[in-house]
C-alpha cells in the first residue's frame, strides 16, 4: 500500500462517516464504501476490522451481535455520541485541509519577486 499512513487516518473518518447512517456490520460497511467511492479508494477488506476495533477501544463506536435480513449472526457497529462529535470535528478539519490544498493547486500566479531597493 503506497500511502498507508495517509489511508490509516483517513480510514477512521470514513468508517465514522459510514456508521453515521446507522448501525452496520463490517461487510455492509465495505459494500457502502465500494459503492460510494468506487475504485478511487482501494481498501483491503481485512484492514477494516483492526480499524473498527480501534474505534471501539477509543469509545467512538460500540458493537453488538445481531442477525441480518437473511437470518445470519453478524457483529454490528454503531456510532456513539463521542463518535459523532469526533466525526464532526474530523469533517471540518478535512474541509479546511482540502480547501487549502485546493487553493495552492489552483493558484494562477507565481511567487512575487522580492522588492529590490533600487
Amino acid at each position: 500500500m503506497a500511502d498507508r499512513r495517509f489511508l490509516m487516518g483517513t480510514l477512521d473518518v470514513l468508517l465514522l462517516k459510514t456508521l453515521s447512517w446507522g448501525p452496520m456490520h463490517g461487510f455492509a460497511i465495505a459494500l457502502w464504501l465500494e459503492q460510494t467511492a468506487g475504485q478511487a479508494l482501494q481498501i483491503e477488506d481485512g484492514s477494516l476490522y483492526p480499524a473498527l476495533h480501534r474505534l471501539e477501544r477509543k469509545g467512538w463506536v460500540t458493537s453488538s451481535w445481531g442477525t441480518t435480513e437473511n437470518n445470519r449472526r453478524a457483529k454490528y457497529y454503531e456510532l456513539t455520541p463521542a463518535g459523532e462529535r469526533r466525526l464532526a470535528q474530523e469533517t471540518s478539519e478535512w474541509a479546511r485541509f482540502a480547501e487549502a490544498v485546493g487553493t495552492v493547486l489552483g493558484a494562477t500566479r507565481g511567487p512575487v519577486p522580492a522588492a529590490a531597493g533600487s
Partner: protein
Amino acid sequence: MNGAGEGEPRWRRYLRFHGRDAAADTEAELAFHIAERARLYEARGMTPEEAHRTAVDRMGDLDLVRRECAREDRSAEARRQRRERASTLTQDLRIGWRSLARRPGFATIAVLTLALGVGATAGIFGIVDAVLLRPLPYPTEDRVAVVWELGPEDAGRWTAAPGKIADWRRQAGSFAALAHLWPSSVTLTGTGEPERIPGVYASSELATVFGVSPLLGRWFSAEEVEGESRVAVLGHDLWVRAFAGDGEVLGRGIVVDGTRHDIVGVMPADFAPLGDADVWLPVGPLADARGAHYLRVAGLLEAGVTFEAAQGEMELIVERGAAAYPDTDAGYGIEIVPLREEELGDARPVLRLWLGAVVFVLLIGAANLANLLLARISTRMPEIALRRSLGASRLRVVRQLLTENLVLAAVAGVVAIGLALALQRVILSLQPGTLPRLDDVAVDGRVVLVAMGLAVAGALVAGLLPALRLSRLSGSALVDGIGRRTAGGIGRDRLMTGLIVGEIGIAVVLTVGAALFIQTLRELNAVDPGFATEGRVAFRVSLPQSRYGTDEQVWSFYRDLREELQSIPGVDAVAASNGIPLEAVPWFQASGIVAGPDGEPPSMSAPFRIVTPGYFDALGISILEGRPIDESDRAEAPMAVVVERRLAESFFPGGDALGERVRISYGDLIDARVVGIAADVRQYGLGSAETPGLYVASNQVRWSSHTFVLRTSQPLDVVASAIRERVDRLDADLPVYGLATIEDRLATSLGEQRFRMTLLSTFAGLALLLGVVGVYGVLSYAVTQRSREIGIRLALGANPGRVVGSIVRWGALLGAAGIAIGLAASYGMTTLVEDLLFEVGARDPVIFIVVGVSTALAVVAASWLPARRAALVDPTETLRRE
C-alpha cells in the same frame, strides 16, 4: 435494523458474557465477512471454491488482521477493567458518604470523637517536630560539645574558670577548636532611645565551632580578641532593627556601653550559640583565675572523636589540674554535653508529657469510634445480609465497610487539621517562653500528613472489627430474621465492654496526672514568698564603667535616683538591690563566703544581696531581730550585714547571731558585724530550693547594676513614664529595662507550672468527656437492644426502679473496672512526672481517691440517663413492634 444494540446497558451485559473470548469473536466476525463476500461472487456465477478463494484474497493478510484486532481488544479490555475498579471505589465511597449523611447525628459524633484525638496529637506533633526533631541551624551540630565544670560536692554544672580553659586549650586533643564566651547585657546608645540589649563577649573561635559564616563581613580575629579591639559583630535582629538591614553597615560604628566599636560582621538570623545575642564583642585575653567561674565553653570535636572520648580526655586533664592546683581545682569535675542535648534536653520531658497525654486522648477517641461502629452493627445487619444474599463476597463487604470509614477518616482528618491549628495557636499564645524554637511551629505538610495518616489509621483500626463481624453474616441470616436479638446478646458484648473499660482507665490516668499538676500549682500558690507582691513596681539600670568608674560616682547616682523617684506622686517607698527576688536578669551569683570571726576556714557559701537603705521596707521583708540596712551603713562605717533566718540558724546554731562578727569574702576578706536577721525570702522562685543569703549595704560594696523597687498604688503605665523621665534627668543615655510589677514577675515565674497544668487539665477533661460519652453511648445502645426484654419484664410486673438499678449497676461495674485499671496504671506511671511536681507525691493517695470517686460519679451519671429511658419503655409498644 434488528439486533443492533440500543444503548450502553445491553452492550455491557453482552460484553460480560461474551467478551471473555475476544479471539473467537473476531474469528466469527471475519468468517461472516468472507462468507457474505463469497455469496456475492457465487451470485455472479463463480464456483463455491473460487468464490471463497477470491473472498479470502480480498481480505489481505488475515493473520495480520487477527493480530491487530487482538491488540486493540486487549487494550480495550484493560481499560474496561480499570474503569470497573475505579467505579467500584467511587461506588463504595458514594455508599459510604450516603450512609454517613443519612445519620448526621452519628456522623457528627463519630467524626468529632476521632478528630479531637487526631487534632490534638497532630498539633502537639507539630510542636515536637519544630522543637525536637528538626536539625539545629548549625552545620557542625553533631560535633559541637558544650563543656561544663562540675562543682564540688555535687553542686551540679558550673560555668568555667578562665585559667582552666587555657589548660584545656593547650592540652586537649579531642577538639579542633574551643570557644569561650561570657553572656552579658550591654547598653546601646546612639541609635535612638538608649537600650539594654543582650551582648555576648566571645572568643575568636565561636563562629568556627558552630560552623556558621557571617552574613556580611567576618568574625573577629584572635589578635582582636587578645588586644580587646573595639570591634563588634551584629546579630541579625539588631542589624535589621537599628540599621534597617543596611548592606553597607560594615565599618560603621556602634556605641556599646559608651564606647564606639567598628562593625566588622553581621551574623545570619538563627545564629544564637548558647543563647541569643544582639551583638558579639571580643572577650579579651583569658585571665589566669581558676576560682572565678563565669565563662561558657563550646568545642568542635575533631572528626571521628566521640563525645565519650572527649569526656575521658577532659577528665584526665582535670585530674592533672587538681594535682597541680589543689587550692582552686580540687573537687571539681567536668562534663561534656552534646549541643543538641544542651539546647533541647530540658524541653524533652515536658514535650514527652504532652505527647503522651494527646496519644491517650487519641486512643480513647479510637476506642469510642470502634464502639460506635460496633453499636451500629445491628442497624446495618439487614442491609449487609441482603447484599450477601445477592452475591456480594465477604471481601467485598469488608472493603465496602472500610471504604465507608475512609470517608469518615477524610472528614475527621480535615476537621483535625483545623483543631491542630487552633491548638497550636492557643499553646503559642499561652506558653511562658520556656521552650526553644517555638517560632518555627506551624501546621505544615508534615503535620497534615500525620493528621490524615492518624485519621485513616484510626478509622480503619476502629472499623476493622465491626466490619469483620458484619461480613460474617451469611445471606441466610436474612431469612433467619435478624434484628430480632436474643435478650441480653449484644448488650453485653465482650469487645465493647473491654473498650469501654480501657477508655475509662486511660481517662483516669490522664485525670490523675492533671490533678497532680493542679495540686502542684496550689501548693506553689500557698508558698509564702517572704516579700510583698502587691503594689510594687521594679525596673533595672546598669551604670557603664566609662562614666561611673568610682565608688562615689555609683553611690551618688543611686542616692540621687532614689530621691528623684521618691518625688513621683503616689510613690511612698523606693529602694534598690543588685538583684531582687524572682529576677530573671543575670545577677550576682552565690559566691560570698562567710567565715568565722577569727578567719578560720570558710564554712559557708552564701549569695550576696547588695541593698540600699529602705530595701526591707520597700519589699515588705520582715526584720525578725536587730535592724535593717540603713543610712548609717556608709562607706566609712564598719561593714554591716543582715542575714537570713536560715543562715543565722545554721551558721550560729543555738546562739544569737545578732552582733556576731563574720568575715565575708568580696575581693578581700572583710570583717563585718551581723546587725539584723531577716525573714527567709524565695529569691529564685516559689518552687526552687533556696540557698540562704545575706544582705550588705550598697553604700559599702559597689555594684554597677541595680534593680529599683517602688512601693506605689499607681498602675504600672502611669509610673512607667514618670520613671523614664526621672532617670533621663540624671542620665539621658541610661536605659531603663525590665520594667514590670512584682505581681507580674510572680505570675511569670509560675507561668510554666500554670501552662503545664492548663494543658494537661484540658487533655484530661477531654479524655474524661470522651470516656463518659462512651459509657453513655454503650448503655443507651444496650437499652435499645434490650428494650424487648425490658418490655417483657415490665409487662410481667417488674418494678421500674429495679430495671433502672440493674442498668446503672452494670454501668457502675464497667466504671469500677476502668477506674481500678486506671488507678493501677497511674500508680506505675505518675513517677515519670515526679520531677515536675512540687510538694505533691506522685502517688498522693488523696488525689487517687478524689479522681477515683469523681470518675465513678461521672460514670454513674452517664448510666442513669439511659437507665431512666429503659424504665419508661412502654411494654405494649415494644412487643407490638417485634
